[in-house]
Structures are given as structure tokens and as C-alpha cells.
């Protein structure tokens, strides 16, 4: 059978954006804003941040799944650093390490069987991983002095507290709590 050859019509496509896309974009913008504002806070070790933007990561995780949360985290770190002019700087690397470790542990946490964690649980995991990732990188690359480890227990305690608070806020933000999926 011969294939008919037809003149193809140029197809104009309009990119439709869904309300979901709007919401994600809005959340990403919020995350970036928080990231930028956080840079104004003083910190015990240069570049180490409490990770308040984790609230957004957890909210996105619960509503849109892990992949989206990973994207938003990455966007937050990249755009935030571009806006602050810290792209590729030590601060950027620390943010990246923190974000990377938190979404890493969230990926593992999402795959666990059973009813799983709620917003507070994910948030605690993310906050602890975030702090550990940042601290370890800071120690390996920037301040290999063994005595900075004296700060570690204090920072982890702070991370736990921030994690609980972020989790409560993220839970309040997301009215429909969905099981996160990878």
C-alpha cells in the first residue's frame, strides 16, 4: 500500500499551562526568595544556613512528588545563587551539598513501605541531612580543622528544631497530603 504523501499543515501549538504548573512556579519562586533572604542571616560557619527553604521542598514533595521536589530544590539553589551573585562560590557549593543530601534522603524515605512519614517526619530527615551534608563539605573542603566538630552536635540540634517547625508549616500549607512518590 502506498503511503499517501500529504502536505503537512504547520501546527501551531500553544503551550498550555495548568494550574499545577502555576502552583509549582509560585512555590519555586517562594523557595528562591527564602533562600535569598536567608543569606542575610548570620551563621556560625560561613555559608552554613538553617535551610528554611526546606519548608517549600517538603510542601512540593507532598503535593507533587519527589521529582518535582528535587527540581524545585535545584532551581532554588541555582537561581538563588545567581541572584545573590554566589554562583559557583563556596556558599553555592554548601547549599548544593545541603540540598543534595536532603533530597537524597527524601528519595530513600519515599521508597519505604507502609504508611510512611508525615510532613514533620520528612522535614526532620531533610533538615538533618541538609545540615550533615553542608557541615561535612565545609569540613572537607574549607575548614579541615578537627575542632570544628565541636559545633556539630549543636548544629544538629538546631537542625532538628528547624525540621520540626518546617514540617508543621509545610503540613499546614498542603491541605491535601499525598503519599510522596518517587
Amino acid at each position: 500500500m502506498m503511503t499517501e504523501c500529504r502536505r503537512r499543515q504547520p501546527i501551531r501549538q500553544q503551550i498550555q499551562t495548568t494550574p499545577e504548573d502555576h502552583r509549582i512556579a509560585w512555590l519555586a519562586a517562594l523557595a528562591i526568595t527564602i533562600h535569598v533572604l536567608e543569606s542575610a542571616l548570620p551563621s556560625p560557619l560561613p555559608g552554613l544556613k538553617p535551610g528554611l527553604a526546606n519548608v517549600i521542598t517538603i510542601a512540593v514533595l507532598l503535593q507533587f512528588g519527589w521529582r518535582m521536589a528535587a527540581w524545585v530544590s535545584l532551581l532554588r539553589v541555582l537561581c538563588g545563587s545567581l541572584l545573590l551573585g554566589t554562583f559557583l562560590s563556596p556558599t553555592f557549593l554548601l547549599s548544593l551539598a545541603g540540598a543534595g543530601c536532603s533530597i537524597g534522603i527524601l528519595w530513600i524515605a519515599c521508597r519505604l513501605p507502609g504508611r510512611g512519614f508525615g510532613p514533620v517526619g520528612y522535614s526532620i530527615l531533610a533538615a538533618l541531612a541538609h545540615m550533615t551534608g553542608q557541615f561535612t563539605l565545609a569540613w572537607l573542603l574549607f575548614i579541615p580543622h578537627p575542632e570544628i566538630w565541636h559545633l556539630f552536635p549543636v548544629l544538629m540540634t538546631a537542625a532538628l528544631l528547624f525540621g520540626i517547625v518546617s514540617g508543621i508549616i509545610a503540613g499546614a500549607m498542603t491541605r491535601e497530603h499525598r503519599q510522596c512518590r518517587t
Partner: protein
Amino acid sequence: MLLAGCSQPPDPGQHRQFFALGTLIDITFYGIDSSTAEQAGTELEQLFLRMHADWHAWQPGILQETNHRLATQDEFSADPTLLPLLEAANRLSRLSNELFNPVIGKLIALWGFHSDERPAGPPPDKAAIRELVQQHPSVTDITLDNGRIRSSNPAVSYDLGAVAKGYAIDRGIERLRAHGIDNAIINAGGDLRAIGRHGDRPWRIGIRDPRGPGVLAAIELGDDESVLTSGDYERFFVYKGKRYHHIIDPRSGYPADSATSVTVIHTDATTADAAATALFVAGPKQWYAIARRMGIHYVMLIDRNGTIYMNPAMRQRIHFETEPADIHLSKPL
């Protein structure tokens, strides 16, 4: 604020170091004032330096003179300061089935391990080694009676390197006790004796990894114990990719090659020093029998493959940093 700490240096009187007997001597004190520590440290330093000079087999001194006279095969009176060491060395040699042999001085010199400096290759000629081995210098060729000494074998020549450090440590401990010091460690590289405790806890000793920079294991010592380690990494030279170390097997004339290190715990350091050497030469196959003969109760031997051999009592006492894969436990000693 958390990083700043109390920056007072710990009392330097608690550690005293000096170079003697071909190694670094580290004296650790506990609970005495710095002037006593200083004084004791200086006295030990002088003692060790003098012993080093007296017992050097190949530089002018008491031992060299003794060796010259022994070669004549005439009887003479042994130097009174050297006599106890010769008696101890002879006795320990017999106990070890002569695997520890203090009279193979000519063989050790042939290899170049007699001097303080590290020899450079190449290894000695096979024929030369064989000749010396066949002359069979042995402590059984020596009669030592009432301070009079005679050798019936001109090949006999004392090199006390394998037992001198242990003996020196024992004399050093005696001196410390004479000063009323009852808590101290004398550490001469691989040879160490500790008395007393570190305050309210026992002394903690780290055993170095023979093949790496870190610590392999830890031991807590009792009130008066010595730890001695003999290894192929202490004095050696490398020639054409092969390592030749200073612990010569008197039976073959070549460096003993079945072990990489031996650690012994015992009361006096002289016996422990001779035993560590003998057990190193004995290797994985014969160490148990020799240890029994010499009355040693704690042995750890590491062979060429990294396999660890030890008796059950030693296994109880030693705490490894990382559990080794391969441990062979012997029968109780």
C-alpha cells in the same frame, strides 16, 4: 567561643625524649613534679648513651675488646659491667633453641646491620654467607664460669643488638625505682616497659601497624610489664625491589622471612627482647614451641600474608582498631 579551649600546654616534664641505642627513647612519667622528671630523664639519658657506647660491637669499646679476646680462644676475665648481659644472652639463647643467637656478630656485620647507619645494597655474596654459617658460632662454644670466659670457636663474635635495648630498659627501670618513681614508661622504639599506672587507669599502649602509619591495636599493661615488637620494618634496605631486614636467621644466614612482626608481652624486657627475635625467626610454624620453652605467655605473630597468630591469653588482652579477617588461635601457652 566553643572552639577556643584551655590552651595551657600539658606539663612537658611528663615526657622526656632523647636519641640513644639507635632509636628514639621516650620516657613517660606520671604524677611527679617536673624537676624530678627532668633529673631522672637526664640520668637515664646518660645511662643509655653510656650503654650504647660500651656495647657497640664494632666501635672501640668494652664489647669489641671482649670479642677480640674471645677470638684468641684464651680464657680471660669478662668485664664486670658486661658480664650480666653476656650471661643473660647465653641463657636466653639456649632457651630459644639458639634461634636467638647473640654470637653471630660476623654474619650481622657482613650484612651491614652492625653499624648505626642503614646499609645500602647489594646483599652479601652467597659463598661468604655460607662460610660463616658453616662455622656455626654458638653460645655452646662459650664457657662462662665465675667471671672467667673462654670461647672454643674463633667464629664466635657477640652482637647484642637483639637484646641490648631490653636489657638497657630493665636497668633504666631499676634506676627510676631507685629514685622513688613507680609510675613510668621507658619506650625505646619497639621495646617498652611500664611500671605502675597512669593515675587511676592502667597504661594504654598502641601497637603500630607494621605496614601502615596508623595504630593496629591497643593493650593495657599491668603493674610491671614489657611489650616488645620485632619487625622487618625497623632496619632494612631494599635492593632490586627486595627487602632485606636485620633479623638474621642463624640457620640460613639470611633474613628470616616467614613473619613481618612479632609482639610479646612479658615481665622483664631482656627476656621479651630475646624472645621477640627468636619467635620472629621461628615463624608461624615453630613459634608456639619456642614460646613455651622460654616461658612467654603472650605472643602475637603476623606473617607475610597479614595472617595473625596468637595464643588465647593474648587474644583476650589485645583490642584491635578494626577486627582482622584472619586470626589463628593456638593452644594455650
